[in-house]
């Protein structure tokens, strides 16, 4: 019993000491502290954004606290709550869900802490948004297919995890273009959950049921695009089918260079990451910022590949 009191007292003094020292440091350096909650650090694209954020923060002298939400909106809300409790200067949110993450944005705004969304949107508007319009990426990809097929042919679409903003908007953008080309027919669409091996299985099954009827494949991300390419290659059909996907990850760029993947759509992780930090720092310094900073997508084909391979 005695000992436990002793331990308790020691702990309390230790904690009190810690608190003071951090407070002192903060006031001394007067650094801007930014809390960052990222969708998933298991996703290469998201990791790229976060790497760029760290670089930019170092350059601008801001301190980052980066946490991984592991794709869970609930976890993300809890992380924002703890940022609010820590009294960070600005929060950057890379939302895992359109609707479910909105309470997080609301909480930050209610606590008077500015919040910047990066890469994906939430239903509730944050202080500022930095990212790209996914409708545009779907349009670019389907437009490429339309051009390659001369506006006529059968297309299959491999979708991301149903219900996510990126999946919904990429599908919607692609369908807008399909409407403009009555000769293009969407003969099948199905989710492969952003996963390469699931996409490969799905493509194999489609090759069984549609065979040479398939003229083009649009996959919502590169992982799935590469899975489809592998299935088509195994079936000896790649030469006759156009495959396009989105993100321009390193693997996909190599595949475009080799001619395996016909095109990918480049989403600029660097500009998104750097843009988010710049916006956050400006807000913390009381400067005016644009409510929406849109980073454009770019089509990457064999003709333009050298610009992206660095």
């Amino acid at each position, binding site marked *: 019993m005695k000992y436990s009191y002793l331990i308790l007292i020691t702990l309390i003094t230790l904690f009190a000491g810690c608190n003071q020292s951090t407070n002192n440091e903060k006031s001394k350096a007067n650094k801007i502290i930014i809390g960052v909650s990222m969708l998933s650090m298991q996703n*290469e694209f998201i*990791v790229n954004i976060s790497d760029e954020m760290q670089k930019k923060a170092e350059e601008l002298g801001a301190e980052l606290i980066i946490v991984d939400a592991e794709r869970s909106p609930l976890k993300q809300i809890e992380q924002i709550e703890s940022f609010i409790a820590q009294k960070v200067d600005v929060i950057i949110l890379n939302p895992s869900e359109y609707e479910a993450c909105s309470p997080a944005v609301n909480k930050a705004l209610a606590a008077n802490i500015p919040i910047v969304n990066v890469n994906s949107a939430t239903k509730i508007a944050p202080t500022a948004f930095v990212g790209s319009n996914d409708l545009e990426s779907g349009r670019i990809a389907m437009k490429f297919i339309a051009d390659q097929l001369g506006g006529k042919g059968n297309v299959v679409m491999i979708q991301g995890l149903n219900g996510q903003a990126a999946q919904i908007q990429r599908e919607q953008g692609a369908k807008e273009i399909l409407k403009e080309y009555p000769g293009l027919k969407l003969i099948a669409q*199905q989710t492969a959950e952003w996963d*390469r091996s699931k996409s490969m*299985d799905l493509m194999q099954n489609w090759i*069984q*049921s549609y065979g040479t009827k398939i003229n083009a494949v649009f996959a919502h991300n590169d*992982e799935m695009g590469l*899975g489809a390419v592998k299935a088509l290659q*195994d079936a000896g059909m790649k030469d006759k089918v156009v495959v396009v996907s989105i993100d321009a990850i390193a693997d996909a760029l190599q595949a475009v260079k080799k001619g395996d993947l016909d095109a990918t759509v480049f989403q600029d992780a660097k500009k998104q990451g750097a843009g988010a930090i710049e916006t956050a720092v400006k807000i913390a310094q009381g400067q005016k910022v644009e409510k929406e900073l849109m980073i454009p997508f770019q089509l990457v084909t064999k003709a333009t590949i050298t610009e992206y391979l660095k």
Partner: protein
Amino acid sequence: MQYINNIRQYGLLIVFGIICLLISLITPQFLTVSNLTIIVTQVSINALLAFGVTFVIITGGIDLSLGSIVAVTGVTSAMLAHPDSNPVLIPIVMGLLAGLLMGVFNGFIITKSKIAPFIVTLGTMTIGRGLALILSDGRPVSNLSDSFNYLGSGTIFGIPILILIFILVFALCSIILSKTILGRYIYAIGGNEQAARASGINIDRVKLSVYSISGLLAGLAGILLASRITTGQPNAGAGFELDAIAAVVIGGTSTAGGRGTMSGTLIGVLLIGVINNGLDLLNVTSYYQQVVMGIIIIGAVIIDSLNQKSNS
């Protein structure tokens, strides 16, 4: 004992036959050599996991770390399989070794600490996922040698290597379970651990063996998956353990232990593959696929418990 298993298996076989017949009536593409080959190739990775975990489940245990072992071994082998780096045997051996080590770790902790296998393997599941991310730095490991990639997409005498491995592993596991002393001990422990201990069986050694086999086969699955998709993905295999356990349960192995067969698991694996393939051919959305799969899992267990009652 054998008799009960036989009845159940015929029942399962009949269900399997009816489902195949139904699908082939609706889509003519189903019953073609190329489609059947694709189904068997697609289920082969789940099959390896299911065969391994069948041993574990018959002892009354569970292994939730399978999917993470797949990720660790896939990443490990991929990192060693870049072109002109190592002979293809090195990534294969190291991948298998990584899987075996994780299995031994599971078995060691379970036997020494007496903590429930559910908890221990839940822990290794998380540890494994973390290790795969650390090893790969959170990025897919790509640019693998052609000889490594050949494993997952090549053929020998026109038969995909994946299918050959699938058949070989099935044969080996069946023999271990039904023809060896280890197999008999596995059933004995699952049936009644106290009685097995009293009769002088070294329980710890048997348990260590089953988790090691399970880890080793998950390692093989990880290597083959990496080869098939030509990358080692740190987030590969998430949820694979549940697919494998589903196949084992559909195949009539009791999760309480003591009862089950490899051939039951084989049919369970094929049934899942046939249904997924059939629903894809029919362009049914994945939402319905999940519902159908859940109904089949519960249905299989209900039939199992009815059978049990009528026999006791």
